[in-house]
């Protein structure tokens, strides 16, 4: 059953993320989103199958429920998780290739630098399980070959040391559990198993089915980038079914009247929740792009760094420790949230000592 199950976040872990002392949620969201995008871009350039990159996205999301986001540079965490997952797959990559690709992506000559967030949700990847990579998409990143960045020997040494150190720290933070089961192959298999999708738009059933599968997989990939972190709270069969449902709605496939999701052991409530979550990703992505531009005031472009976030915190007066807020509405919400969290902490401490 391991191929259908993942370790999930505990309520405690989810709660910690929103608790006292944590970064404001909307900053966490931006960090999460842009780092996951970076991982995706690096996976493309390293010619890794999407199944490998997707696992790296999930490991990274888990890691950030255990370790503070600000503990290490975001791009380093992205590189370490991708390197680790690739090592365990049948597509290992060398530290040198990883160093080179990340240096490139973070340099001013990459398309990612100029518009790190313009692409999500990413183009539907090749059919799952096929080992081919989308070189066509990859080339769009490396258009400007003449301007590739130079990585000095000492720069490489430093990157290499950070990469291996973080690999160990990520492993320790996850208790050395690197298992990730992806919903993508399940969605494809389930769609094949069900012959009940007949299409209104055009007569070609086969083309319709392919469109449907591609759409479902796109939902699953988009959900990887979203800080809702649905992969940490729901098992692959539920994610697969929700993506199928959403995709069927989009392409106008006719679904049976019965509660077909129960065949895959998903109940209506969970399905409903996931469908809402997955469908919100797109609108949310637009908002994210806007937020990201704001968060990077002072530095026009490129990957978000810890420095950017520290700067933003300082602007909001959240680091200096003086009174919260510079009149921004978010800060007020944060303060209220923190107050609630503090009360909850006290209550829990009380209960624990009473028991």
């Amino acid at each position, binding site marked *: 059953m391991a191929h259908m199950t993942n370790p999930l976040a*505990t309520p405690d872990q989810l*709660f910690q993320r929103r608790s006292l002392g944590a970064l404001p949620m909307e900053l966490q969201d931006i960090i999460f989103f842009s780092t996951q995008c970076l991982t995706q871009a690096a996976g493309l350039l390293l010619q890794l199958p999407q199944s490998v990159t997707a696992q790296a996205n999930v490991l990274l999301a888990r890691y950030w429920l255990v370790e503070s986001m600000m503990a290490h540079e975001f791009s380093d965490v992205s590189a370490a998780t991708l390197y680790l997952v690739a090592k365990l797959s049948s597509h290992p990559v060398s530290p040198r290739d990883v160093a080179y690709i990340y240096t490139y992506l973070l340099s001013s000559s990459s398309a990612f630098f100029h518009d790190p967030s313009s692409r999500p949700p990413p183009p539907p990847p090749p059919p799952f399980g096929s080992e081919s990579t989308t070189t066509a998409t990859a080339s769009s990143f490396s258009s400007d070959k003449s301007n590739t960045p130079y990585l000095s020997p000492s720069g490489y040494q430093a990157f290499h040391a950070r990469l291996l150190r973080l690999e160990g720290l990520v492993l320790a*933070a996850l208790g050395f559990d690197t298992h990730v089961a992806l919903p993508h192959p399940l969605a494809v298999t389930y769609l094949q198993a069900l012959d009940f999708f007949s299409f209104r738009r055009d007569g070609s059933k086969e083309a319709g089915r392919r469109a449907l599968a591609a759409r479902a997989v796109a939902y699953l990939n988009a959900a990887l980038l979203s800080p809702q972190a649905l992969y940490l709270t729901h098992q692959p*069969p539920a994610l697969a079914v929700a993506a199928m449902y959403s995709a069927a709605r989009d392409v106008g496939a006719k679904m049976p009247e019965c509660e077909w999701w129960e065949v895959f052991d998903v109940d209506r409530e969970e399905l409903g929740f996931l469908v809402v979550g997955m469908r919100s990703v797109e609108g949310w992505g637009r908002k994210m792009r806007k937020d990201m531009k704001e968060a990077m005031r002072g530095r026009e472009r490129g990957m978000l760094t810890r420095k950017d976030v520290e700067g933003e915190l300082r602007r909001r007066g959240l680091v200096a420790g003086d009174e919260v807020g510079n009149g921004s509405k978010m800060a007020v919400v944060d303060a209220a949230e923190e107050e609630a969290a503090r009360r909850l902490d006290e209550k829990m401490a009380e209960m624990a000592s009473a028991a």
Partner: protein
Amino acid sequence: MASKPKSRWADDEADAALEAQRKKEKEEKKRLKAEKARKLEAERKAREAAAASTSQQAGDDPDRGPPAKRRRLSPERDNHDGDDHGDDDHRDDDNEAPRAHAPSSETTAADPSNLLRFEGGTFGRSRSVENYDKLNDIEEGTYGWVSRAKDVATGQVVALKRLKMDPKDRSGVPVTGLREIQILKDCNHGNVVKLLEVVVGDDASKVDSIFLVLEFLEHDLKSILEDMPSPFLASEVKTLLRQLASGLAYLHDHFILHRDLKTSNLLLNNRGRLKIADFGMARYVSDPPPANLTPLVVTLWYRAPELLLGETRYGAAVDMWSVGCVFGELLTREPLLQGRNEVDQLARVFELCGTPSDDAWPGFRRLPHARGLKLPRGPPRRRSAPRSPSSPPPARPCSARSSPSTRPAAPPPARCSSTTTFARTRGPSPRPCSRPSRARPARSGGDGGRPPRRRRAARR
């Protein structure tokens, strides 16, 4: 062997003291268990309260994380971990049973349609090795050091296997170690050694030592065979082999190839329970197996002929060959096929099994190393098959059939409980028990015909 001077780690006194303490510890364990249960209950209450309030909080933001109240996100692992430690007597081929359970009544109540719940556990930080007290070293292998240790908090005795990390290795944590950990984590069977947790060195800023915490078993088959004054009875061989086959069938059912079965990797506790250990060479394979596996696996004396011939598309049959070799060794207390090198090993295989014919093993001549091979013509010069002195001999183990396709598979998990069978047939326990537990001399590296292992190369 017992006449040898005090061994490097002989620890008889500590063992005796431990024995004397056992009662005390058992009581202590009981107490701790009760306390743990109490704590868990308190924790659960607190968590429910937290979940309830989070879901209120999350109520005004439907796009963000799921309301935690909706369902229990994590099974409380500890619930079935608690009774899982060591007491093999009443736990047998405990396959997946605990995992499929609905975690609690509160979820089942909300679940009218009887849907299957998928439980994958949780994730969280590794603890420090400082939670264990080292008792003595057991063995130094190729990939690690193994020592006996005690959990400071619970008193449980465990085996700590330290992954060898080469600081000069530019690729970081060895992939073999990571695979070993992942596979052991995924396994749950009475004849496969249990991984309790993975702990790390105390330095929080870097991870330079990694330890697998394994359930402790008193012996391995190799040392037992070396120390035994007389060979196993046929009934003993049978119960050992049954357990080995049952564990191996579980692995193969879960798409795991072990690729290093040999007597030193088969552990045995004082109650006669056999467990497969050392997954340093193991990996998941697809079905049918991929075509690019490395043939450089399995210790030479236990290596199947197709591997010796350089086959890269092989499957469960390579493990079954090793089982045949172990079988022979159990009967005679001597490794069955002690080749000096790969060519010699192959010659010995053909001497025992006969030179394969194209009918019996179609296509074997096309294997990479078969071309330069001078095969003896004519009927096989069979040397006598291994036999148990105490009973009518089985014929040449049928798992030692040179053609991989006619080699039998590991049987489906034995239905009847292996411990009851064991009790009935009076297994090897009296002998092992008569020796002080783990009081065998450390070996001087004489592991025999170890293959040239590719170390960090991405093994396929």
